[in-house]
């Protein structure tokens, strides 16, 4: 049975990933900031483990809980949007640091801590949830300063990681879920089940040669 760990799995895309992978027979571990409030995740059949994505001690605790346990796939899904409507002069240092800490640094810290588990797995896939907003090339309408910057930074991190871990045969791939109807989008966008069905197909088809790619739910690569 293949195994997958999904961070930020209590709602939205993370929860649906747990549901769809679990329904397909995968051994799913979902992380939650508050496992006591992760009833929907638990109902998918997933194992729930605590994780505060930006807390080093919490990441270390997760790694200890999973010590010696192989993981085929890790999806660093946990993320925040920050203030999406602030104009340039309204963006605060606190918002910027919180968003880049959660969306850019935390995914690297998570997969780094779980590298031994990935090395013990068979598929060896380290995935992170990026966004259309990460693309500098496609940015022709502005807005969302902190969020965009965090996802562009994430792309750089993953791209670098893909080169670093090539010798370990761990494929590091960025995923783009598309514009999905979640709390972050105020319920606008495509049904989350449709996006996740596409992402699941993409993840299942990934191999070592895909490392360093930024791939959408529709299987298409995005320009940087």
């Amino acid at each position: 049975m293949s195994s997958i760990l999904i961070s930020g799995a209590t709602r939205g895309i993370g929860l649906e990933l747990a549901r769809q992978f679990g329904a397909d027979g995968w051994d799913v571990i979902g992380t939650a900031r508050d496992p006591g409030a992760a009833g929907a995740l638990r109902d998918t059949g997933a194992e729930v483990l605590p994780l505060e994505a930006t807390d080093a001690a919490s990441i270390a605790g997760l790694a200890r809980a999973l010590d010696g346990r192989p993981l085929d796939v890790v999806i660093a899904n946990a993320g925040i949007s920050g203030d999406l409507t602030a104009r340039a002069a309204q963006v605060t240092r606190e918002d910027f640091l919180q968003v880049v800490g959660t969306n850019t640094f935390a995914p690297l810290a998570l997969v780094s801590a779980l590298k031994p588990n990935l090395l013990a797995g068979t598929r060896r896939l380290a995935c992170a949830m990026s966004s259309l907003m990460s693309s500098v090339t496609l940015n022709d309408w502005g807005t969302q300063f902190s969020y965009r910057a965090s996802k562009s930074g994430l792309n750089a991190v993953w791209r670098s990681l893909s080169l670093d871990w090539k010798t370990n045969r761990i494929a590091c791939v960025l995923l783009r879920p598309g514009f999905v109807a979640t709390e972050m989008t105020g319920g606008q966008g495509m049904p989350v089940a449709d996006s996740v069905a596409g992402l699941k197909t993409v993840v299942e088809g990934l191999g070592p040669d895909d490392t360093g790619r930024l791939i959408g739910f529709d299987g298409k690569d995005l320009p940087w």
Partner: protein
Amino acid sequence: MPTILITDAHRDPGLALATHYANDDWEVIAVNRAPLPPAAFVALGANVRELRFDPLSEASVRDVALRLRGRPIDVAILTGETAGEPGRPAEAVDPDHWRDLMLVNAWAPFRLIALLEDNLKAGAQKVVAMLSDPEAYLADYGTPRDYAYRASKASLHQLWRTLDMEFRAWGGVCPLLAPADAAEIAARVAAATPDEAARARL
């Protein structure tokens, strides 16, 4: 006499740019992390005004903006950055070093320009150029690691691109420029257009 603001003008490439523009009869506002070398200060002449700037400090950014309140700025060229740690593996990335690089390389230049928007609106040329590093261009990655530096530069590029979108409403242009000699950079700044700034590549 036109006015240019240059960050990190106490050292090259900022110092070379300050010298170039001062020799061309521009008023130079040097926003520096460290003092101008005395010889450089003398050589730049009466057309230079120096302000101290700590990119890790929000109070320092605000202080620079306050001191320049009401003064039109025609061109800004931001050159400041802190180098990364190229050899550090992913498992050993230090969160404090990461935070400082994000603040110095991405947040501080963005924040400074955001607070100087009115000064730039009042200027004639309205160009806000960022000198950056080809390593930040993801498609060209050829070597691993240097996570914090690359993340900070990729974030900076996206902030600058987004800033360009916002500033073009009043005619502002925010190009990203690859390093070159001062005359070449000045020529690119003089020729900066919205179309040029729209190109994401350096």
